């Protein structure tokens, strides 16, 4: 979950563990593809697609139009993240995007098609994803598969397929430089036909036999000295790729690689010997036994004792997406006018700017290894917090708790106002300060606050008074006379500084 509302939290709390895990593993229905919301930005019509219509698989008339569509694609990523249902699905989309990286610096339709592939397999089959990824047109461009020819192989994809996507860089990842070279030879012969793509056809990988290396490929003892027979004919390359992926998935390190990555993503960045033995190994066995279906592994992980171990509570630093989009979701902010496509477009563009300043531009990990805090030892998730980002996070949270989110709407200023009163309406006991702090902690913080911090918060809410009755009275006065402007303003003026302080606590950066 990237953020949740009070109501969603209440729903989950009332479920049995089994039911809540079923809920979390729900595969949501397909999302609507991105539409032409960029005409105001472009300052002209798109001949390939009318305003408001989905632009996917339509004619790309020129580069400016494609660039506008890319921005629209980024906005679509935000929408999906902000509108997700009660399920781990969206968080898994981000997991795959960070593990199997491409960025958004390519034709809009290729970016979309890549992400759509990850979305549709997010709780599906690891091996299927890798097969799809290997021949995905966006990936063929991103890691130069489309330039990889028999005469002069390009090793880029062959290397990352092993180093990042499947085998990893663990102690037991013992593939060799020669395995990279041989895999590159297997992968020769594929390319994209851009003319077809520009015309609006569904992009699909093309194969030209003449560019395929038809010699035998000899792999190292790490892969059991496997030889992949060189093949000719129109299906030769495809057959070899299937054998290559079979070979990689037969190696037990691949299953462990995914399970280690899932552990680090969902629970804790460190893999102790105990975790390796009691969590990773059984999960990897399960993954192999289930033929690389991810759902059973997630089910086991999410219901495991280890997952609920109190010592891991609050032990991850929120990524910028979890920080901003999560807060957005919990506060149920929304577009000022959901039918105003231009406003939606610019709102999402601004959010993308904010996220980039925090070190995480959605859709564009900085390198093929993903965002550094997901892998760079020894800081890992701590690295989201630098002297630069920690102050920017505070600026953004101050903005949310004072005016709301500032949006540059095509030159006009737009504030998406935060409605804390509405938030409190969803609480169990908004007039009880202890309960108010407890419920706010559940929604926003990774850790319990100290007694001292709670006292500070109380004092802020009571404007320096100590009698809690004042708050009870303020809230109930408002509840009894919701139309009374003075009562409402009184409540709002207490809640804004309360949440400003709450959001500046370091605990707000943990989850």
């Amino acid at each position, binding site marked *: 979950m990237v953020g949740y509302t009070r109501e969603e939290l209440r729903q989950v709390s009332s479920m049995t563990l089994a039911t809540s895990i079923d809920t979390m593993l729900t595969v949501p229905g397909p999302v609507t593809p991105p539409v032409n919301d960029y005409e105001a930005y472009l300052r002209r019509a798109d001949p390939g697609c009318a305003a408001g219509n989905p632009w996917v698989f339509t004619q790309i008339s020129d580069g400016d139009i494609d660039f506008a569509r890319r921005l629209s694609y*980024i906005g679509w990523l935000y929408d999906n993240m902000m509108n997700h249902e009660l399920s781990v699905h969206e968080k898994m989309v981000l997991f795959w995007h960070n593990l199997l990286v491409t960025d958004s*610096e390519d034709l809009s339709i290729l970016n979309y098609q890549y992400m759509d592939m990850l979305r549709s397999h997010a709780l599906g089959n690891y091996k299927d994803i890798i097969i799809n990824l290997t021949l995905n047109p966006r990936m063929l461009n991103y890691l*130069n598969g489309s*330039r990889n*020819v028999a005469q*002069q*192989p*390009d*090793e*880029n994809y062959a*290397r990352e397929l092993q*180093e990042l996507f499947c085998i990893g*860089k663990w102690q037991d990842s013992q593939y060799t430089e020669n395995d990279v070279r041989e895999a590159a030879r297997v992968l020769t012969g594929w390319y994209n036909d851009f003319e077809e793509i520009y015309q609006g056809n569904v992009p699909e990988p093309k194969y030209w036999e003449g560019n395929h290396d038809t010699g035998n490929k000899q792999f190292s003892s790490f892969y059991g000295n496997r030889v992949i027979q060189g093949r000719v004919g129109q299906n030769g390359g495809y057959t070899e790729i299937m054998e290559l992926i079979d070979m990689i998935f037969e190696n037990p390190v691949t299953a462990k690689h995914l399970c280690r990555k899932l552990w680090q993503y969902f629970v*804790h960045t460190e893999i102790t010997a105990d975790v390796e033995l009691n969590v990773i190994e059984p999960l990897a066995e399960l993954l192999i036994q289930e033929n690389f279906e991810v759902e059973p592994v997630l089910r086991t992980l999410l219901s495991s004792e280890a997952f609920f171990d109190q*010592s*891991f509570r*609050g*032990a*991850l630093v929120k990524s910028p997406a979890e920080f901003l989009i999560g807060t957005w979701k919990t506060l149920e902010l929304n577009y000022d006018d959901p039918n105003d496509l231009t406003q939606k477009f*610019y709102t999402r*563009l*601004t959010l*993308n*700017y904010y996220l*980039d*300043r925090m*070190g995480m*531009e959605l859709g*564009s990990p*900085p390198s093929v*290894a993903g965002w*550094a805090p997901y*892998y*760079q030892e*020894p800081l890992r*998730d*701590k*690295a989201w*917090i*630098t*002297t*630069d*980002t*920690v*102050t920017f996070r*505070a*600026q*953004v949270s101050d903005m949310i708790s004072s005016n709301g989110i*500032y949006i*540059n709407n095509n030159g006009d200023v737009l504030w998406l106002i935060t409605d804390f009163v509405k938030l409190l309406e969803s609480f169990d006991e908004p007039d009880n300060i202890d309960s108010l702090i407890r419920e706010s902690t559940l929604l926003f913080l990774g*850790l319990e606050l*100290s007694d*001292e*911090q709670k006292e*500070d918060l109380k004092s802020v809410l009571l404007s320096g008074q100590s009698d809690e009755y004042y708050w009870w009275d303020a809230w109930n006065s408002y509840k009894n006379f919701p139309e009374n402007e003075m009562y409402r303003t009184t409540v709002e003026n207490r809640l804004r500084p309360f949440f400003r*302080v709450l959001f*500046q606590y*370091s605990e707000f*950066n*943990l989850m």
Partner: protein
Amino acid sequence: MKRRSFIKHLGHAVAVPGVVGSFGFTSPLSVARMIESARETNRVLVMIFLSGGNDGLNTIVPLDEYSRYDLHRPNVALPESSLLNLPNRSLAFHPSLSFLRSLYDEKRLAIVQSVGYPNQNFSHFRSTDIWMSASDSNEFLTSGWTGRLLNHEFPDYPEGYPNDDFEDPLAIEIGNGGSLLFQGPTAAMSMTISNPNDFYRLISNNTGEVPDTLAGDKLKHIRLIAQQSQQYGEVVKKASERVGQQVEYPQSYLANQLKIVSRLIAGGLRTPVYLVRIGGFDTHADQVDRSDPTRGWHANLLNDLDSSINAFMSDLEYLGIDDKVLGMTFSEFGRRIIANASFGTDHGSAAPMFVFGNKVNGGVYGEDPVLPSNRSSQNNLPAQYDFRSVYGSVLEQWFAMGKSDVNSILLGDFPSLPIVEDPAFIGINSDVVEMSVFPNPLKNQANIVFISDGEPVEVSIFDRQGRKIQQLYQGTPVSGKKMIEWNTSTLPIGVYIVLVKGQNMTFSRQVIKRKDF
């Protein structure tokens, strides 16, 4: 890295008042006063990371090997007529590097040929880690060499920092990512900024007890960073505000970073190390334009590098701090000798490094690369110099470190090159028995012992910034062992250099005074 382009395009569309911040170009401090404050600053090392693996063979082309060069990379080879030749050498610069060529002519650029390490690793991430951590190919470190350097100088950091003795950040990287380079054995030693004026007052975070759990550990980290960002933020902002005008820089991500660095140095920050980045050197495809190999992706990158360094050097000169700064480029690896069919080159091994600055001993270090005679043989350039030799030379000659300290930071003994023309302290060698200072760390009183040759000699104390703070002795002792007493009871906590300078000899020793003594 191409990733910046989105945000660059969006810059105007989403500029947000109060959140984006901007440079204050209005502060009216005079250049003279600025120069004055800059004089107090330390020697500075500015590292430029060329991320992705720079193609050394197209950066500096070996002309003796031109026919083989053309044979191995017919689609990316630069035409001989387009190259910028080095006088009296059979080497030439890429046509985009005209400013670096002029730096070379002025003896302000050192080219170190074929720098790398044994058992080249071809993974970006692993090889970047090796360069940043100064490890062997098969050694896995989680600290950076600069992090260890700073930890050596400031062993207690971050506890008790900033303080009156050192209120400036120890290292600054521009951007928003923490790099392995500055990771010390236990703490990250650098401050990250994207805009020196863009600091923000945080509500003071409760820094009381944290629970003894994993979450408590993260909480402590966030609080400490938040606290430091406040204190260092003020210092950085002030330094930045002290500088009025700067020369004009080109519009690029790298140039903007160097502009900030120049501003902070001129503003009087004593921060000794800076890291800036330029990405996109992973030129597997379209390294060169298909119709004109002097143009294309790599040419654009080198042009950005060249024009950014040009502006940076002019600015340093304009601000009067050009003698204080040494620049160094590095990249995780070079690229293959043989080009691929995508008009690009794959991950390779050794490549040249540039070291630049007024105090550089300009010239070419090492032999020119030799290319294989046919295409079936070796496809990678062997390394002539270990990259740690270059780091070590900088530590020794620029930062005046003793050889044994250098070795402890680089975790090994690497021969040095005479890269710096005017080393901080000539003949420095803390291992020689001709001179010693004890006790070290210092207590209230220290003894300086050296072997006199009967000629006039001076004994002086310098602080870490190279300022002479005390002259202890001036005279002509008789030949033989001479001992001088030094009262250190009122000396502030910090690192000092004791220099014994005679007619025919110069010795120095680095000493430290710590809190506990």
